């Protein structure tokens, strides 16, 4: 084992690689009247990610840059960003694979800004709490649950890393903050699909609302942006089918009281 390794073998190098990339980074401090972009040039290697480059900018060029990060493998959900106008996790987005010599980096949309690239996730969790998180199931033990047939083929809401990319990408949230949004509705569908002793009608009531499942424009931007294959748009469509079928049954008096 070496005390210091050969820097030339660094697959995520941010210097001395000969491939300079210009980063246009959104900046805004508390109290500023508006945002602006600052430019920094960083040399990148084939595996250098947007997050690596931003950390290098902060470490070497500008210690005042504010950004969020934690796990570096798209498991924690903290480094969601808009890179060249698309919602991505910075830690798994390789700079050279973007194919542009200038890379624009902005914070995710539709969340309150802390500063620069960091957003405050309070609103995201408030949306989840409104539907997906106050559920008291009879049991927290998966072993006690009756799982629906074919559950192994389901997209798992448990894969949600709470990054906010779906909210950022959603064209409806952008214009109407009252809309519950894709992450919370995906959570609702999960709770209805596998209620673990809960009455799913309670959750379906919350989802079957003009500001919930019916507010979605079916743009599928959320599913496109999701880094964890949760497919929020598919979940919203499933909730609509469940709600419609429940109404139909209710109309013909089939719904149990």
């Amino acid at each position, binding site marked *: 084992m070496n005390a210091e390794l050969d*820097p030339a073998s660094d697959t995520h190098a941010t210097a001395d690689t000969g491939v300079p990339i210009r980063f246009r980074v959104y900046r805004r401090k508390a109290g500023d009247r508006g945002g602006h972009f600052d430019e920094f040039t960083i040399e990148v290697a084939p*595996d250098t990610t947007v997050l690596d480059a931003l950390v290098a900018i902060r*470490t070497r060029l500008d210690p005042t840059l504010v950004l*969020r990060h934690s796990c570096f493998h798209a*498991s924690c959900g903290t480094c969601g960003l808009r890179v060249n106008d698309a919602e991505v996790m910075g830690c798994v987005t390789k700079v050279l694979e973007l194919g542009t010599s200038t890379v624009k980096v902005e914070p995710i949309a539709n969340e309150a800004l802390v500063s620069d690239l960091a957003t405050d996730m309070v609103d995201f969790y408030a949306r989840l709490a409104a539907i997906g*998180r106050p559920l008291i199931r009879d049991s927290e033990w998966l072993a006690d649950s009756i799982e629906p047939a074919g559950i192994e083929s389901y997209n*798992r809401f448990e894969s949600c890393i709470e990054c906010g990319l779906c909210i950022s990408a959603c064209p409806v949230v952008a214009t109407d903050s009252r809309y519950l949004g894709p992450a919370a509705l995906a959570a609702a569908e999960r709770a209805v699909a596998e209620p673990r002793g809960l009455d799913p009608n309670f959750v379906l009531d919350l989802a079957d609302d003009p500001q919930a499942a019916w507010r979605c424009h079916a743009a599928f931007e959320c599913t496109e942006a999701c880094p964890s294959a949760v497919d929020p748009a598919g979940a919203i469509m499933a909730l609509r089918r469940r709600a419609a079928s429940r109404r139909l049954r209710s109309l013909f008096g089939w719904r149990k009281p």
Partner: protein
Amino acid sequence: MRGSAKVQMSQSASAPHVVIVGGGGTGGAVAHDLTLRGLRVTLVERGELTSGTTGRHHGLLHSGARYAVKDRESAVECIEENRILRTIAPGSFEENDGLFVAITEADEAYEPLFFESCLASGIPARRVSRAEALRLEPNLNPALRCAVQVPDGTIDAMRLPLRFFATAKRNGATIKPFTEAVAMTIAAGVSGRAVRGVSVVDRSSGARYEIGADLVVNAGGPWAEKIAALAGVDVPISPSPGVLVAVRGRYANMVINRLHASGDGDIVVPQRELSVIGTSSWLAADPDHLTVPADHVAMMISEGSAMIPAIAAAAVRATWSAARPLIGERGATSGRELSRTFKCFDHAADGVEGFVTISGGKATTLRAMAEAAANVVCGKLGIESPCRTREYRLAPHTAYYA
């Protein structure tokens, strides 16, 4: 136990104020512990919480089995804390267990010592035959010889620590991310120098200000040396990075460990739909400049696929490095020669009062590290208040954002 305390601290304006520098798992657990003991607590972290080593680890809840043969003290610490964390943070773990798999003849020869050492450390361990191991985990290398099942688990590396922050905040602590400690206020007293506060820069606004403190805790992990230097103190903490590789696909339900003496690439931790392979070990000069060496990445893939062959062809999701904070004598050249057990330094011994460093350790022992640090802090401040974190159930991580 409450009645045994001479002084019942209730959090009040007159309670001593402790500033914690470092918002990783250790800092969060110290904030939680001290808040429960009635102190006023402010924690500052230069970036987002858990943005240093904490969030980057492989997400293993240690049973202690990895240390059972060579480091009994760490093994006992791990299994104790493993049991406590399951009680105080239910829902933050996959209770998926761990399997140590013997692949080679040499691995198999190591098994009796390993198994007996687990039992001697108080770690529940069960011998698993080759056939049963392959039935439990069909993706394992069919050449495996035998296995041992232990109570490892998968932790969410960010959300478990976030529960300590959430609980501390709910109980009155002030948590300040994006707030960098840039200087210490040192007063000359009768008995020498003493830390009296921390100057910080709020990176979200650029504002610089001072936070007064009766005592400052350095919980900087591998950055502890840099933070201690602000107070003119040297602590023997070395950043020892290791490479981790996440591949797409969950190839095992249990945590898969190589049954041999600790080595590189000896663990595969399933995390949601990913498998995380770790790790290697070297010594770095600066935790802010970690490399991800190509040969280490290749070694993770080859060692990981010795246990789970499908890893060789799996799509790589991410590669990264995380720096352990290792305590040791200067001059050691490889991270593994240093102890993994944590240590609390009272810098009165270095001629600086009001300054304590807690470092070393691992994610599984964050609560125990905090208890040790809080005992030292309370002792120095003359407060008798028992530790309550062994039983205190933590708030959910979402409460941090409430």
